[in-house]
């Protein structure tokens, strides 16, 4: 069993493709997290719950006979305003406080969202069927559900749009300026309050897109948000803040690593091995930092 990858070489190709497609989707969620972490210094524990809420939007469209893929457009619009509302109600009160307070606050939001979604949508596991079919490669040995390909494509599209927006638009520049130095930005006339609200809104919108994609590719459930929070947290930790190519690479890398861990070590070690990798990366980073410090001395 352990050497399945060698017995069936096609599994290697499959694992790489699966990992990359999955990783791109996670990278999108992680990018939202990195953005608002970098700008507002807030670790959003409710990230996964925003994703699930976006998923429910697509699911309800599907229930009412609209193709769930349209959720990719509708969910971010609704979620942007949800994000702004959360910012105005809670986040603006904790934005300048220390990290611990913001973690507590967003943890509270997370619990509230879980319970509200459970109350409103019920505790059933649901999904939206896209009916996209399957792509077969290499003599039917490698299969890729088109919904996963669609998800990856949309994720990349949104990421590219966002990068361009951040570079070219006025608000994008203001967000980047605030991330670099909020006080200086304020002095130079940037309305940081507005920037913060917009950043949180954009993050929620990205979660909405990802959620809609997840309802098409996987399943959604009110209590399934936390794994997405943890996964995006890990991607951001590995990539570092404000480093979009890094986020994309670490997302895909983690996806592929996870798939291989599954085939080589077994499914039960899949998540564990990712955590192990995280620890190793942190230790390595610390080691590198300490070397630098010595050099400075």
């Amino acid at each position, binding site marked *: 069993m352990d050497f399945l990858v060698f017995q069936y070489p096609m599994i290697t190709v499959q694992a790489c493709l699966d990992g990359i497609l999955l990783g791109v989707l996670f990278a999108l969620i992680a990018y939202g997290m990195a953005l608002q972490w970098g700008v507002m210094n807030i670790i959003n524990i409710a990230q996964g719950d925003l994703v699930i809420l976006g998923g429910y939007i697509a699911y309800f469209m599907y229930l009412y006979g609209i193709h769930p893929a349209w959720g990719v457009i509708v969910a971010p619009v609704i979620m942007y305003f949800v994000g702004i509302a959360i910012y105005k109600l809670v986040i603006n009160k904790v934005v300048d406080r220390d990290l611990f307070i913001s973690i507590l606050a967003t943890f509270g939001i997370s619990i509230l969202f879980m319970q509200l979604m459970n109350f409103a949508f019920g505790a059933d*596991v649901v999904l939206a069927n896209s009916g996209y079919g399957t792509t077969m490669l290499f003599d039917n*040995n490698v299969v890729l559900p088109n919904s996963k390909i669609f998800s990856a494509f949309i994720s990349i599209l949104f990421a590219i749009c966002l990068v361009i927006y951040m570079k070219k638009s006025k608000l994008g520049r203001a967000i980047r300026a605030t991330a670099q130095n909020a006080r200086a930005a304020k002095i130079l006339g940037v309305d940081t309050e507005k920037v913060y609200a917009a950043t949180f809104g954009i993050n929620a919108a990205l979660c909405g897109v990802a959620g809609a994609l997840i309802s098409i590719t*996987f399943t959604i459930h009110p209590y*399934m948000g936390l794994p997405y929070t943890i996964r995006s947290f890990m991607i951001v930790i590995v990539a570092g803040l404000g480093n979009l190519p890094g986020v994309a690479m670490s997302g895909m890398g983690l996806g592929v690593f996870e798939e291989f861990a599954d085939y080589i070590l*077994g499914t*039960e070690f899949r998540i564990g091995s990712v955590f192990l990798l995280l620890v190793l990366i942190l230790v390595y980073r610390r080691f590198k930092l300490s070397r630098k410090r010595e050099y400075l001395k």
Partner: protein
Amino acid sequence: MRLNKIILSFVSALVILFSTSVASFAKVVGDKIILGAAISLTGKYSSNGVHTQNGYNMAVDRINSMGGVKVGGKTYKFDIIYYDDESNPKRAAQLAERLISQDGVEFMLGPYSSGLTKAIAPVTEKYGVPMVEANGASRSLFTKGYKYLFAVLAPANLYLDVAIETAVELNGGKPVRIAQAFEQDAFSQDVRLGILDAAERTGSKIIIDDKLPKELNDMAATLVKVKQMKPDVLVVSGHTKGALTAIRQIAEMKVDVPMLAMTHCDAAKLSKQHGKNSQYALCASQWHKSLTYKDDFFKDGMTYAADFEKEFGYDPPYQSAESSAALLVFKDAFERANSFDQKKVRDALAATNMQTFYGNIKFAPGGQNVDKPMVLFQVMCDASGKCENKVVAPLKWASAKLIHPIPKWSER
């Protein structure tokens, strides 16, 4: 100061008097037998919690309207005190304590799920409160030597071993190659143990044995292995998440396997959520409305299903049927014990041997029901895409013939 003291002692005396009077009357108030139940009305088990509660309520109404419970020449009616355990085992255990020591409940009905039943059982055992439960199937509940726990359902390890035996039979008595994927929780792992037993019995080989994480929503890796290694049977158990994920990805990845056996198909509303993609899946179930068991209160499965639908507006899942059966068991035990003494009722429960619309009920010393086999149904769809669950095993109740092997995706 003195006046304060007098008032304080007067109030505390009142409180003590009130609380003892509640406790001493709570088990049977007037003509009412009060049962206690902690049910998941919110939280992740809330949908099945509601199914459980509806099953209990339906049976209470039915028994009360058909003459109630006769004990010592007097007629009593059932009443249930419910608390919401929020799908949380710790809360469930607290609520069981509260039901017993504060509300004075002397007889309990079970919560939903094995995990919560496991949390409550030590409490009811400690106080010697008989509990008839209908939704905790984990094998470990019945190996702890509990004396006051009775389950109307078959234990989890029996859920899918019929499938393995059927597969071997269809293979001409020769062993089969099994691929299995189970969520890492008490229930699914018990189902897994049952498969291991069945594999050993039949000499079958397990070639894939995956343990899925609790937050499972992607089984692609397991299915890739299945595609490459081509087993004869694929067994999946991971509550509703597992059933929905498996069907979605099997269809998307066009995984061909001669037999697919699962749990929680009806709770997952497979045929509704996946339509034709769920066709041919074999599902383990505690009960199906087409079974021909009978009793005086609900007549038979079909009548129960019709009455249930009239009252609650949906087709009863087996979680509701087994919950209703728990009340029938209690009524029978009270009447045979002819007393409200907990020990006597417990002994009467242990000696239960009856048929209900849900199945025969007879408890082993561990408390599990040994007289009711599991049924397997297969999702079958007609040309218009309408899918139905049809019982295919055991043969005695089969309403359709098992379709085996499952047609290849390229031929569908």
